[in-house]
C-alpha cells in the first residue's frame, strides 16, 4: 500500500462521512409525533434481503483480506507463480451459466406470484421458474466438481497444497469459495423442494423471495470467483 492509496482512502472516508452527516442531521429533541419512515411502507426491502446484504459484506471482507494477504505475501522474493489448469475456464463458464439460469428463475418467479393473469399463465411461469432454478443449482454442482478436478490436476503436476505459497493460497481460496457455494446450495435445495408444491398462493411470495436471495448470492459468488481467478491469472 502506498501513500496514494492511503490518501484516496482518506478522501473516500471524508465523502462517506459527509453523506452520513446529511442523513443524520435530524434534531430529535424538536420532533414530536409518530414520524413516517420508508421502513413501514409496503415496498420496503424484506429483512431477509437486508440480512443477505450484510452477510455479503462480511464475505467480501473475508475474501478481500485474503487477497490483501496474497498481495503482501507475493512481494517476498521466493514467490513462485502457479500455472492455472485450463479446466478453470470451463468452471468459470459453468458458474456464469448457473448465474444466468437462476436469474431467469427469479424473473419467472417474480412475475409468478402476482395476481394478474390467468391461473394457467401463473402455473406456466412457476413451471419455468422451477426449471431454471434446477439448472441453476446443477450448474453450481458441476462447477464444484470441476474445481475438484482442477485440484487433482494441480496435484498431479506436483503443485500440492503446501508446495508453494501461491499453491496454498489457491487451495485455500478455492476451498473457501466452494464452501460458500455449498452453503448456497443448501438454501437452493430447500427452495427447490419448496417450489415443487407452489400451487397454494400464500407460499408463493416466500418461495419467490428465496429464489431472489439465491440469485443474488449466485451472482455475488460469481463475482468473487472472477476476482479470485483474476488474482491468480494476472499477478
Amino acid at each position: 500500500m502506498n501513500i496514494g492509496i492511503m490518501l484516496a482512502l482518506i478522501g473516500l472516508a471524508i465523502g462517506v462521512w459527509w453523506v452520513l452527516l446529511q442523513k443524520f442531521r435530524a434534531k430529535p429533541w424538536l420532533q414530536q409525533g409518530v414520524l413516517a419512515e420508508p421502513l413501514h411502507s409496503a415496498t420496503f426491502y424484506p429483512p431477509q434481503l437486508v440480512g443477505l446484504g450484510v452477510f455479503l459484506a462480511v464475505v467480501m471482507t473475508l475474501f478481500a483480506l485474503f487477497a490483501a494477504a496474497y498481495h503482501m505475501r507475493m512481494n517476498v522474493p521466493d514467490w513462485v507463480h502457479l500455472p492455472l489448469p485450463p479446466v478453470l475456464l470451463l468452471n468459470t463458464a459453468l458458474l456464469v451459466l448457473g448465474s444466468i439460469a437462476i436469474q431467469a428463475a427469479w424473473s419467472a418467479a417474480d412475475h409468478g406470484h402476482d395476481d394478474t393473469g390467468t391461473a394457467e399463465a401463473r402455473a406456466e411461469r412457476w413451471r419455468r421458474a422451477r426449471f431454471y432454478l434446477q439448472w441453476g443449482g446443477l450448474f453450481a454442482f458441476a462447477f464444484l466438481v470441476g474445481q475438484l478436478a482442477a485440484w487433482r490436476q494441480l496435484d498431479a503436476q506436483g503443485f500440492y497444497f503446501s508446495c508453494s505459497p501461491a499453491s496454498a493460497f489457491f487451495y485455500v481460496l478455492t476451498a473457501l469459495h466452494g464452501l460458500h457455494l455449498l452453503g448456497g446450495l443448501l438454501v437452493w435445495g430447500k427452495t427447490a423442494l419448496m417450489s415443487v408444491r407452489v400451487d397454494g398462493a400464500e407460499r408463493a411470495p416466500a418461495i419467490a423471495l428465496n429464489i431472489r436471495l439465491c440469485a443474488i448470492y449466485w451472482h455475488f459468488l460469481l463475482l468473487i470467483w472472477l476476482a479470485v481467478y483474476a488474482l491468480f491469472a494476472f499477478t
Partner: protein
Amino acid sequence: MTQIAVTDQTHVLHEPHSFVTRYIWSQDHKVIAVQYAITAIFVGIIAMVLSWLMRLQLGFPHEFALINPNAYYQFITMHGMIMVIYLLTALFLGGFGNYLIPLMIGARDMVFPYLNMLSYWFYLLSVIILLAAFFVPGGPTGAGWTLYPPQAVLPGTPGADWGIVTMLISLAVFVVAFTMGGLNYVTTVLQARTKGMTLMRMPLTVWGIFMATVLGLLAFPALFVSAVMMLLDRLAGTSFFMPELVSMGRQMPHSGGSPILFQHLFWFFGHPEVYIVALPAFGMVSDLLSTHARKNIFGYRMMVWAILAIGCLSFVVWAHHMYVSGMNPYFGFFFATTTLIIAIPTAIKVYNWVLTLWRGNIHLTVPMLFAIGFIFTFVHGGLTGLFLGNVVVDLPLSDTYFVVAHFHMVMGISPVLVVFGAIYHWFPKITGRMFNERLGKWHFWLTFLGAYAIYLPMHYLGFLGVPRRYYAMGDTYFMPESAQALNAQITIAALIVGAVQILFFINVIWSLRYGARADGNPWRATTLEWQTPTTPPPHGNWGAQVPEVHRWAYDYSVPGAAEDFVPQNVPASTGEAPR
C-alpha cells in the same frame, strides 16, 4: 413485491411449548441473552482466577511451585483471550445486544430467531473448545493473547502441540457464532424498528451496540483469516506466516512466510475489537447517566456522530500496535495521526457525559455510581493512550507495565464498570426484582478504589522500565527494590478486588429470591424497554400491540410535564413546553 414491515406482523413466531424450547433451545432473544451472559461471566471468572495466579507469581516470585514459566505464559494467554473476546465481546453484544435491541426499538424479537439461537450454541461450542485446551497434552497455548508467529507454533512455546490448535479452532468457531448474531443485530436495528422509532430517536445504547456490531462484522473476518492461515501453517505445513528458520538446531520445513503479515491481519481485527467493546459501553453509560441524572443527554446528535466517527476511524489505526515491529516512518506518522484524531470524537463524548451531569438532578444509585466511575477510569486510560499513540513515546514504553496499565484501565476496568452498572440498571427488568442497594454500593466502592490500587502503581512501574511479559524480574540494576514492594502491593489489591466480586454474585442470587418486587419502571426511565405491559417481559415482549414512538429517548425534566420523565411511547400532551 409487497410485504408487511416486521413490526406490523401480528402472528407470534416460534411460540415455545415445553421447558426445553423455552429455556434451552430457545429462540427468544431474552433467554438467549441470559444464556450468553451466564456463559460469558462463567469464563470471565476463570480468566479472573488466572490473573490471580499471574499476580501471585509477580508479587511473590518463586513462592508457588505450581506457577512455572510455562504455566505463567499459558495463564497470560488464556486470561487475555478470554477477557477480550469470550467475556467482553460476548457479553456486550450477545448478552446486552440480544436483550436490549428488540426491547429498545419496540420489536417482538430479533428478525432471525433461529439464527440467533444457533449463534449462542456456536458460541458455547467455541468456549468448550477453548477450555478443552486445559486438558490436552501440553496444555493451552502460551503464545500471548496476540498469538504472534513464528513463536506461537514453534516447539518451546507452551502448548505448541495442541494448545495453539484448539485456540485457533475455537476462535474460528467464535467468529462464525458472532457473524450469525451480528447479522441479526444489524438487520433487526435496520428493519424491525417500531412505528416512529427513527434512527435518530434510538437510545444511544442501541447506537453503540449497532455500530460495534458493524465493526465486528467487518473486523472478525481478519481474525478468521489469520486463524485459518496459522492453523494451516501448523497442521498442513504451509508457509503463510512462517519464515525459513532453524528451531532448536533443526531446519524447519517452512520458508518465506511473513510474520508481519500476521500482525497486520491480527491488528486489523484487534484494534476495532477495542471499540467493539467500548462502543456498547459508551452507549449504555450515556443512557445510565441521563436516566439517573434526570436530564436529557447533552448533544445527542454529536454523540451519534461521534459513535460513527470512532467506528470509521477505528479501521485506520491498527498499526499503532506495531510501532515496535518497525515500519516505514511515513506509516508511523500516518498511524500516529489517525490515532490522535480518534481522541477528538472520544473527547466529545466525555465532555457530553460531564455536561449531562452538570446541573442534573443526580441520583447516586448503584448504576449511576458505576457510570460515573467509568468516566474516571476511561478518561484516565484514554489519556495514557495519547502517550502511547505517539511513535517516539511508545517505543520506550511499549514493552513495559505502562501499556498493561493503559489498556486495563481503558478496556478492562472501564467496560467492566459499565457491565456492572448495566446489570444493576436492567436487573429489575430482567428478573422483576430489585437488588440490594447497600451491597451494590459496597461492591462499587471496593471495585472502583481497588482497581485504582492495582493500576495506578502499574503506570509508575512502567516509567521505571519494568518489562511486561516477564515471568520473573531477577536482579536488575535499574529497578529499585521498591518496585518489588509495589508489585506485592498490586498483587494484594488484585486478590482483594477479585474476591469482592463475590458481593455481586451474592447480591444477584439473594435478590433473585428475596429482592423486593420491582415495578415495571423503577428508574422512571423513558426508553421503551421500561414500558412493557408486564415485567419481566413475556415472549413477544409487547402483548397485543407493539408500542408507537412519539418522541426521542431523553425527555427528562421537560418543562410543564406532569412528571420528570415522559416515556417514548407517550403522545405530546397539553402543558408540555412547545418544541
